[in-house]
């Protein structure tokens, strides 16, 4: 019982074409699913490792003994941190006592595009370390904020608002205490401002950050 419609060469051809496309899509999808499955664990592991390596640079391992990646606080968009979507802060604890916080801050006033920073603050409000996570500053000029290019970012180590008055949190050109390289002032200006604002955020939200339990 074959209907005349299915016997028309046009329809036959269309069905054949559709089946071929479907077969290719099926094979492709299966292959992708398989590869995704076998690479998922290594990708997660290397992302975690990269993250931990970064934490190690700004927060000495001997300072805390909890799993930084597990004890986190969600921070909704905040003007002081400059985040437009919610970010996570990692809480460092030593024997269940909060000893530090790792915050992500974004400076929107860099020379070109956003500068993403990772800032580790000790419980007493002093900075343990700062690193640039991502930036689009001019290569060779503004990129000295990146540890791969210069040690400039280490100027922030051990800084705090109690050590340096807020009015001095500026580059030397603007009458502050922070060094900069000639030819690129906008970039360090943005970074200094972002770090100061992160410290202010910390002071304002200390209680909430400390109250975190895993």
């Amino acid at each position, binding site marked *: 019982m074959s209907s005349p419609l299915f016997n028309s060469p046009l329809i036959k051809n269309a069905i054949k074409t559709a089946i*071929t*496309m479907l077969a290719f899509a099926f094979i*492709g999808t299966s292959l*992708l699913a398989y590869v995704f499955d076998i690479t998922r664990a290594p990708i997660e592991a*290397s*992302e975690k490792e*990269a993250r931990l390596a970064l934490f190690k640079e700004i927060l000495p391992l001997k300072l805390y003994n909890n799993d930084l990646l597990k004890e986190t606080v969600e921070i909704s968009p905040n003007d002081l941190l400059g985040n437009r979507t919610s970010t996570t802060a990692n809480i460092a604890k030593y024997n269940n006592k909060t000893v530090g916080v790792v915050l992500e801050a974004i400076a929107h006033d860099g020379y070109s595009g956003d500068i993403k920073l990772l800032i580790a603050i000790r419980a007493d409000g002093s900075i343990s370390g700062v690193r640039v996570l991502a930036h689009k500053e001019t*290569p060779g*000029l503004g990129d000295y904020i990146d540890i791969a290019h210069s040690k400039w970012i280490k100027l922030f180590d051990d800084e705090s608002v109690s050590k340096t008055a807020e009015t001095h949190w500026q580059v030397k050109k603007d009458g502050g205490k922070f060094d900069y390289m000639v030819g690129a002032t906008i970039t360090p200006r943005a970074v200094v401002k972002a770090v100061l604002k992160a410290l202010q955020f910390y002071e304002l939200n200390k209680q909430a950050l400390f109250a975190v339990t895993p």
Partner: protein
Amino acid sequence: MSNLYKEITLNGLWKQNTGVVQLLGLCPTLAVTTTAVNGLSLGIATALVMAASNGSVSPVRKFIPNEIRVPVFILVIAVLVTVIDLSINAFAHPLHKVLGIFIPLIVVNCIVLARVESFAVKNSPAPSILDGFMMGLGLALVLGLLGAMREIIGKGTLFSGIDLAFGPSAKQFVLTIIPDYHGFLLAVLPPGAFLGLGSLIALRNWIEIRKTAKNNTPTPALKPILSH
């Protein structure tokens, strides 16, 4: 038969070189080649995708209806690129961070589709795979060369960032070509890529012209003869 393979290799590496003759796939050429390692890595990833896409289309070329060949090709290429993207992310994570969005962008690199469409659908698997690989290798060499030029002129080093691909122990392979170099910013910025590519094209054309000139000297008969 071996003549065919020789021809394919020569085409990919020199005569029809993707980077400096066909000028296809310029987006990665210009964006990624800030260092030799970046350029070579993306070039080799592209070569692998091209060999794999040519190799998977060629055996099934007779089953692909003409009307849907382009969607099928794109599907195959997209799958392969994603597989390579995931693999690099899993096994060379830092390199993945550097090459970033340029790996998924291999999908839209027209040279990949071009070789499938113009070679793999007309030839058997073995020559197709070789064609894809050689075309990709030709591009990789150009990307590597351009990256090396921009790196030496821009930063005075060669192979910086090699540890991203081969682990921290490879750091010793980073060469400082010009010590105490202050850098030449233009070479690292996008205009440097255009200038560098332009010089490479000029160099290739110059070699080609000299070769033709040499071949032509012993046969003056090629001169046009005016007839009355």
